[in-house]
C-alpha cells in the first residue's frame, strides 16, 4: 500500500474546481469539515470496538470510508474498507486495523493542514 498516495491529487483538484466564482472555497470547506467530523467518528468506532459492538464498528467504518473517499484519502479509505468488511463478516480481528486508522488519519491531517495553509 506504500505506493498509494495519502491524498489523491486528482480528487483534490476536482474539489478545488467545484468553487463557483466569488463563492467561498469548496475545497477548504470540505477539508475543514473532514477535520472536525472524522475524529468524532473515529472515537465512536474505537468505543464500539472496545465494547465489542460489531454493528456500530461497521457503521462508523462505513461512514469514515465515505468521508475518506470523498477527499481522495485513499490509504485511509482502504483501512476503513477493511474494517467495514470485518464488521460485516461479524468477526473483529486484532486491533491492528484500528491502530492503522489513527496512523493514516494523522498522515491525511498533515497533508490537509499543508493544503489549507497554502491556499
Amino acid at each position, binding site marked *: 500500500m506504500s505506493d498509494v498516495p495519502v491524498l489523491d491529487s486528482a480528487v483534490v483538484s476536482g*474539489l478545488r474546481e*467545484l468553487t463557483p466564482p466569488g463563492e467561498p472555497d469548496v475545497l477548504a470547506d*470540505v477539508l475543514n469539515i473532514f477535520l472536525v467530523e472524522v475524529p468524532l467518528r473515529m472515537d465512536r468506532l474505537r468505543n464500539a470496538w472496545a465494547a465489542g459492538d460489531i454493528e456500530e464498528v461497521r457503521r462508523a467504518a462505513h461512514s469514515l470510508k465515505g*468521508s475518506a473517499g470523498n477527499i481522495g484519502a485513499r490509504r485511509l479509505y482502504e483501512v476503513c474498507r477493511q474494517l467495514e468488511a470485518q464488521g460485516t463478516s461479524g468477526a473483529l480481528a486484532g486491533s491492528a486495523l484500528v491502530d492503522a486508522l489513527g496512523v493514516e488519519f494523522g498522515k491525511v491531517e498533515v497533508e490537509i493542514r499543508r493544503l489549507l495553509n497554502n491556499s
Partner: protein
Amino acid sequence: MLPLQVLVADDEAVSRTVVGAMLKKAGYPVIYAPDGEQAWRILDSDDPPALALLDWEMPGLQGPEVVQRIRSKHLQSPPYVILLTARDSSADIVRGLRGGADDYVTKPANEDELIARVSVGARVVQLQTALADRVRNLEEALANVKALQTLLPMCAYCKSIRNDQNYWEKVETYFTQHSNVSFTHSYCPNCYDRFVRPELEALEDARAAQEKQRRG
C-alpha cells in the same frame, strides 16, 4: 424552465457538502438533510423538491425506507429519487431499484456521472410535469363536453334553456358559460323573409307616406 431543486440527504457531512457543491456548480438549487427523518419531512411537505439524492445508509430512516414512503403516497408528480450508495453489488442495486428508487450512484460520486444522472432525472420530471398538465387540460375539456351532453330543458316557444340553478337563460348565455363557444349574430334566409323583409318594407312604406304628405 427554472432549474429544479435537489434535496441531498446524507448523514456524513463531507459527502453531503461535496455532492451539494457538484450540483450547485451545475446550476441546481440545493437543500440538505442530515438524516432520513428530515429528508422525509422535506419530501412530505407541500412543496417538495423535484429531485432527491438519498444516501442509502443513514441512522434512523435509511434511503430505501424514505423511497418506500414516497411511493406509498402515490403522487401524480413524485420526486425523482437517486440512491447514493457505497454498495456496488448488483443484488443491492436491484433491491434499491425494486424498492422504488429511480436510479443509483455509487459513492464517492464521480462529478460528471452524478450530474449526467441528475439531468436525466430532471428530464423525466419535466416530461412528467408536462404530461400531468396535458392530462389536466384534457380532463377539463372532457368535463365541458360532458356538461353539454346532458339533457337540456329548453322552452319550446322562446328557446331559453333552464340552467342548473333553475333559471331560464338565453341559449347564447348558457353556451357561452358552459363551453368555449361564443356567438355572433346574423339571420338565416327564412328569418330574413319572415322578419327582416316585412320590417324593411314597412319602413319603406312609412317613408313613402311621409314623402307624399310633405309634397301634398
